[in-house]
């Protein structure tokens, strides 16, 4: 204990243990970058193999296809960042349209009234999903699986009961149709290109979601709730309200696409929409959202939906044997996820220096 000669550590080491990220790493650390790289790779690939894809008109068809998935995926992505699932998101789209169409047709009521009523109904379902999840603590996967089955059955049962058939009557002669058609299902021309209005709505919802997630207190709450709900609660985040709100935003955007489908096609088949819930989740995951919550962003989810829309249509543009459609789709999606993962690994490799 007499070693007094020990030299004090000279202080060069301010930089020794700190992780510094260069601009490239900071860029790569963003959730959407992997998806963006994958999207560009797939885009270029199809530009090469599918001559019919090389036109602005085709591109906007792809955007339309992406938007019908992407709009609901915006909310599903936020919900997943908040650490929950919603398996009822696919059928609620059909429920929304059915409620509007049948209520108005059978009672001869202006469609706008029915649309509002349908919105209230959908928000109530979203609220119920969220309330049951936060109240019981049962995983949302199970709760919403329950609502999924209930809605699927009710869609068919109620429609059959009311209309005597499993599709709704044509509503395009009813009052309010023109207004709602203009809001939800119109399209306009820019030069030779037809732009569906859902594409614009999709961009708007993505921008709104990006703003909320990155720039507001509520966005921070969503990340906190999905990252670790207990810690979030401990620091004063209203966890229950955030989760219920997220479920309601899913049902809101589900309603929105439901309105689009109804006013674009004028009638609805009661069995539709089943299976789409997985497309929303796929879009979110391909876009870099973590299945476990707490990580992801709106742009990524939008790119995920775009990858899905592009792949599903470009197989057609390329003129490939349609029997292989699903197989191609699966391979594309796997590749997208792997590129995503690879880029993320690159970005999180710690550079100590």
């Amino acid at each position, binding site marked *: 204990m007499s070693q007094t000669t020990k030299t004090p550590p000279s202080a060069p080491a301010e930089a020794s243990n700190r992780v510094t990220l260069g601009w490239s790493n900071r860029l790569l650390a963003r959730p959407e970058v992997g998806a963006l790289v994958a999207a560009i790779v797939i885009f270029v690939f199809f530009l090469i193999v*599918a001559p*019919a894809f090389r036109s602005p008109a085709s591109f906007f*068809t*792809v955007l*339309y*296809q992406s938007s*019908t998935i992407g709009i609901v995926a915006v909310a599903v992505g*936020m919900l997943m960042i908040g650490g929950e699932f919603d398996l009822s998101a696919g059928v609620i789209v059909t429920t929304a349209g059915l409620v509007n169409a049948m209520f*108005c*047709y059978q*009672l*001869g*009521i*202006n*469609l706008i*009234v029915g649309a*509002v*009523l349908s*919105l*209230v109904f959908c*928000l*109530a379902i979203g609220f119920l999903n969220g309330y049951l999840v936060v109240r019981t603590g049962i995983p949302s996967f199970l709760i919403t699986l329950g609502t999924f089955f209930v809605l699927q059955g009710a869609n*068919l049962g109620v429609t*059959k009961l009311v209309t*005597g*058939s*499993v599709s709704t*009557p*044509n*509503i395009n002669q*009813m*009052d*309010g*149709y023109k207004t709602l058609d203009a809001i939800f299902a119109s399209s306009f021309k820019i030069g030779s290109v037809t732009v569906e209005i859902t594409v614009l709505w999709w961009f708007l919802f993505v921008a709104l*979601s990006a703003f909320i997630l990155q720039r507001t207190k509520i966005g921070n709450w969503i990340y906190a709730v999905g990252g670790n709900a207990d810690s979030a609660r401990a620091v004063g985040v*209203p966890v229950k*309200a*955030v989760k*219920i*709100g997220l479920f*309601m*935003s899913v049902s*809101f955007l589900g309603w929105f696409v439901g309105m*689009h*489908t109804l006013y*674009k*096609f004028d*009638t609805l*088949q009661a*069995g*539709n929409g*089943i*299976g*789409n819930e997985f497309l929303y989740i796929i879009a979110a995951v391909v876009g870099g959202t973590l299945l476990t919550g707490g990580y992801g962003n709106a742009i990524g989810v939008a790119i995920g939906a775009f990858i899905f829309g592009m792949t*599903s*249509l470009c197989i*057609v*543009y390329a003129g490939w044997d*349609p*029997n292989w459609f699903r197989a191609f789709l699966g391979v594309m999606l796997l590749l997208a996820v792997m590129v995503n993962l690879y880029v993320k690994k690159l970005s999180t490799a710690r550079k100590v220096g």
Partner: protein
Amino acid sequence: MTPTRTRKSLTVAAGMATAAALALAACSSGGAPASTADAGSGSGAGDNSGYTFAMVTHETPGDTFWDKIKAGATQAAKNSGITLKYSNDPDPAKQATLIQNAVDSKVDGIATTLATPDALAGAVKSANDAGIPVVAFNSGIDQYQQVGAKMYFGSDENLAGEATGKRIAAAGGKKVLCVIQAAGSVALEARCAGVKKGIPATENIQVNGADDPSVVSALQAKLAQDSSIDWIVTLGAPIALDALKAMDAASSKAKLATFDLNVDAAQAIQDGKIQFSVDQQPYVQGYLAIQSLYLNKKNGNDIGGGLAVLTGPSFVDSKNIAVILPFAKNNTR
């Protein structure tokens, strides 16, 4: 999205009653006619036989096609005082179980679809062993006798496809796009294969019939990719309406033919947007299946002379649509 929306929506929910009240005031034209014609109803002044028949199908819930089969069966049951027990499951094993259920509950006769004859043969045999007559309808034309069904009522899908192909060839069609809305269905593949016999340059495309927007964009993409397509054949009436949207969006000059009918497709035929429909008359299939069981039970009759009774293909086009449209609106055609 935000907690505030939660509270807001509660307020909205509270205002629902107000909305409903408003709604009643806000009348709209174009809704349901004041006196709705009850689909499939009619005078039930027939025999009061007291038989119980089971109808088992491979229906996937949510397809209007099956509504018509049921409407026909219900009408036949009503006419002859029959109690009809309907059940369905698209899964072959479960459909077999449903047939077995009917056998166990000692019904007087069974009408079943034979989409998957091999899977159902055992159940049909056990019905025969129990002395319960079985008739087949809608699908299974090639195997119904071998499986043990007495009679068959339905369309020949190959024949229907071939007839469609010939008709399109006669109208000058060169390249047909055949739209398959459900993967792995033998009947749908058979239709397209039949069309291909008439028009060798027929190409199939697989779409997801449960998602209308994706059907439209897929067809739109296909039309953009291959501008030589001059005819489109859809295999279900709702898909035909999606195809019309896609043709519109792609400014395609192609002509459209479809299998099966619904109100909107019938209207589109009258408006000249759909050239023709190949109807297999599902109402007749359901009606005859039940009626034949009744005649067999009551009077020992056998219909078809040992051969299948064909309910289709029956072509619906601009020439006969005026007669058929009211029936389509009535959900019976």
